[in-house]
C-alpha cells in the first residue's frame, strides 16, 4: 500500500549493481554506516525524526549486515540532505556509508527527504522523497527507508516493511490461553495488535503471499478446523466443510488455495494432505497412505510440495508434485524430521529435526542434500522464512518442571548462516511465528 504512495513520490538514482558488501557463506562483517540526526524544524517533526532514526538504525543493525557508527564520533553535524558531506570527516570515523534525512510538514502531510552516500567513493548513491498523510505511517516510512538502504547496499531484497503473525501465549502450561497477534517484524510494541480474544485455542497462523489474509487453526466449539482471518475486515471464515479435523494450513503461492491436512473419520482418522480451492470450494486429495501426512508447504513456483510423513516408520520429509505424484523422500539424516518450509527463493527447505534428545532447526537443498544445522536446543519449532530468504524466525521453548514452572516460549530471529540470533520481543510468550511478504 505504502509502496504505491512511494512510487509516485519516489525518485531514485537507478542503482544497477550492489556495492561493497558481499554476502558469502559464513560470518559477514557488518558494514559501518553513519546515520545523522534526522532533522525537524519543530517539536513534532523533530520527534518523527528521532523515531525514524531509531527504527532505521535498529533495523539495519538487527540484520547483522550493518552497524551504526557511534554518534559521539561524528565530526560533521549538519543536515546533509541538500549540503554535500565533508566525506573526509566521515572517512576518518570509518563510516562506509552515510545516511542523512529531514522531516517537514507540508500541505500534503509529513514529508521525508533522505540521502544515502558512499563515503569512500565520495558520492550520493540514493535519494528519496516521500510524503505521508499522517503520523500513523511513520513506522512504515522507517521500514521503507531501511529497505531502500539495505537493498541499495547489499543488493538483496529488503524485508523490513513486513509483519509477523504469531501465537501469543499466557497462563499455566496445561491450560494455556493462546491468541493470534500481529506486529511489525521488529516486534515494536507500538505495532503490536491482538487479533483474537483467547476464548478459543488458536494455532499455526500463516500469511497469504499476496493477500491480506491469514490461515490458521482454531478450536471453535471444540472442533479443530482451519480458518481464514481477513486482516482488512477482521472476519473469520472456516475453510471447507470437513467432517473431521483440518490443520497444518498454508496458502498456495497464488493465494487462491489452501493446502492442509484433513483427518478423515472415514479413513481411520489418518491425516492426508488436501488442496482446497478457495474460489470454487472444491477439494483435491493429494496423498493416500496409511501413515500420517502433514505440514505441507508449496515451492514458490507452485510446482512442488514438501511435507512431513511417517509412511516409512518415522516422521521424515518428502517432496511431491503439486498433483500428489512422484513422492520422494528427501530427508537423509538420522532423527525425526518435521515442519518443512520451502524458502521464498526456492532453493532451500527449512525443517526441524529431533535427534539425541534435542531439536535442531536446519536447512537442506530441495533434494535433501547439504543438510546444515542452524540452531540446536531442547525445544525448537516452527521455522518461517523472511521474505528475502536470508533469515529464519522460529520459537524456542524452555524445559518445564513438575511444579508448573518453566516452559517459557519466545520468538527468535537468525541468519541462515547460523549467526546473529536474537529474540524478537513480544509482550507475552510467543510461538508459531510466520512472516508476511513485503507489504
Amino acid at each position, binding site marked *: 500500500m505504502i509502496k504505491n504512495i512511494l512510487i509516485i513520490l519516489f525518485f531514485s538514482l537507478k542503482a544497477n549493481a550492489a556495492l561493497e558488501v558481499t554476502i558469502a557463506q559464513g560470518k559477514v562483517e557488518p558494514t559501518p554506516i553513519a546515520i545523522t540526526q534526522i532533522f525537524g524544524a519543530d517539536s513534532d517533526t523533530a520527534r518523527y525524526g528521532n523515531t525514524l532514526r531509531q527504527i532505521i538504525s535498529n533495523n539495519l543493525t538487527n540484520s547483522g549486515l550493518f552497524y551504526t557508527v557511534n554518534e559521539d564520533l561524528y565530526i560533521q553535524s549538519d543536515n546533509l540532505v541538500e549540503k554535500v558531506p565533508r566525506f573526509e570527516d566521515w572517512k576518518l570515523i570509518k563510516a562506509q556509508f552515510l545516511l542523512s534525512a529531514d522531516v517537514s510538514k507540508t500541505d500534503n502531510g509529513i514529508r521525508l527527504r533522505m540521502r544515502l552516500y558512499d563515503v569512500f567513493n565520495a558520492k550520493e548513491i540514493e535519494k528519496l522523497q516521500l510524503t505521508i498523510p499522517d503520523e500513523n505511517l511513520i513506522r512504515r516510512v522507517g521500514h521503507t527507508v531501511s529497505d531502500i538502504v539495505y537493498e541499495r547496499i547489499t543488493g538483496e531484497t529488503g524485508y523490513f516493511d513486513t509483519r509477523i503473525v504469531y501465537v501469543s501465549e499466557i497462563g499455566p502450561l*496445561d491450560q494455556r490461553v493462546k491468541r493470534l497477534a500481529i506486529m511489525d517484524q521488529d516486534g515494536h510494541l507500538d505495532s503490536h495488535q491482538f487479533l483474537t480474544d483467547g476464548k478459543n485455542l488458536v494455532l499455526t497462523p500463516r500469511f497469504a503471499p499476496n493477500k491480506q489474509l491469514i490461515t490458521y487453526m482454531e478450536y471453535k*466449539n471444540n472442533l479443530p478446523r482451519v480458518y481464514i482471518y481477513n486482516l482488512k475486515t477482521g472476519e473469520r471464515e472456516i475453510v471447507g466443510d470437513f467432517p473431521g479435523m483440518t490443520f497444518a494450513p498454508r496458502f498456495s503461492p497464488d493465494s487462491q488455495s489452501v493446502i492442509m491436512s484433513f*483427518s478423515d473419520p472415514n479413513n481411520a482418522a489418518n491425516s492426508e494432505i488436501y488442496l482446497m480451492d478457495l474460489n470454487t470450494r472444491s477439494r483435491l486429495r493429494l496423498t493416500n497412505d496409511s501413515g*500420517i501426512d*502433514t*505440514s505441507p508447504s508449496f515451492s514458490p513456483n507452485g510446482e512442488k510440495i514438501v511435507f512431513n510423513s511417517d509412511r516409512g516408520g518415522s516422521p521424515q520429509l518428502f517432496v511431491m508434485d503439486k498433483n500428489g505424484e512422484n513422492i520422494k523422500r528427501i530427508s537423509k539424516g538420522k532423527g*525425526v524430521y*518435521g515442519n518443512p518450509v520451502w524458502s521464498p527463493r526456492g532453493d532451500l527447505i527449512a525443517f526441524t529435526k529431533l535427534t539425541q534428545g534435542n531439536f535442531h532447526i536446519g536447512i537442506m537443498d530441495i533434494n535433501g542434500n547439504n543438510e546444515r544445522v542452524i540452531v540446536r536446543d531442547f525445544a525448537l519449532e516452527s521455522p518461517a522464512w523472511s521474505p528475502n530468504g536470508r533469515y529464519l524466525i522460529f520459537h524456542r521453548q524452555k524445559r518445564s518442571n513438575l511444579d508448573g514452572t518453566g516452559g517459557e516460549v519466545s520468538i527468535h530471529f537468525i541468519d541462515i548462516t547460523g549467526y546473529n540470533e536474537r529474540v524478537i520481543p513480544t509482550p507475552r510468550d510467543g510461538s508459531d511465528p510466520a512472516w508476511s511478504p513485503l507489504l
Partner: protein
Amino acid sequence: MLIVAGFFLASCAATNTEQGGDVDATSASASSSSGGEITAGTQEDLIVNVGDRVFFEFDSSELTVDAQATLDAQAAWLMQYPDTNITVEGHADERGTREYNLALGDKRAFSVYSYLAQAGIDTNRMEYVSWGKERPEVIGSDETAYSQNRRGVTIVSN
C-alpha cells in the same frame, strides 16, 4: 487409587473451564460437588471405578493390552449407563511438532473411539477430538510427564 483419581479430576475441571467448552463442564462440576459419595454414571464414577484413560507408547496410536482391558471395562460401563454420551480426547507428549502431534492425537482418539464402537457402543453416543500436545496432563519435560501425557481420555459429555 483414590488419591490419583482426585488429582486427575482436579486437573480435568481446570482444563475444561479454560477451554470454555460445554463438553465437559457439566460432568466436572457434578463430580467435584459430590463430596465423598460417587454418583453412578458420572465422570467421577468412570474415573474411580473404571478408569477414564489409556496410555500410548511413543509415536504410537496402537492400543496396548492394558489399554484394551481398560476400554473393555469402559464399554461395559457405557452399556450400563445407556444415556451417557462421551467425547474421547487424544493427546500427545511435547516431543514432536505441533502439527504432527495433532495428527497423532487424532489417531489415538480414534483408536479408543473405534475400539469402543467395536465393543458395541453406538457411535451416536461418541465423539472424539485431538488436542495434540496442547493440553498436557502433567507439566514437565521428562519421560514421567510424557508417559502420562500420551493418552486417550474418555469424558462424559452429558
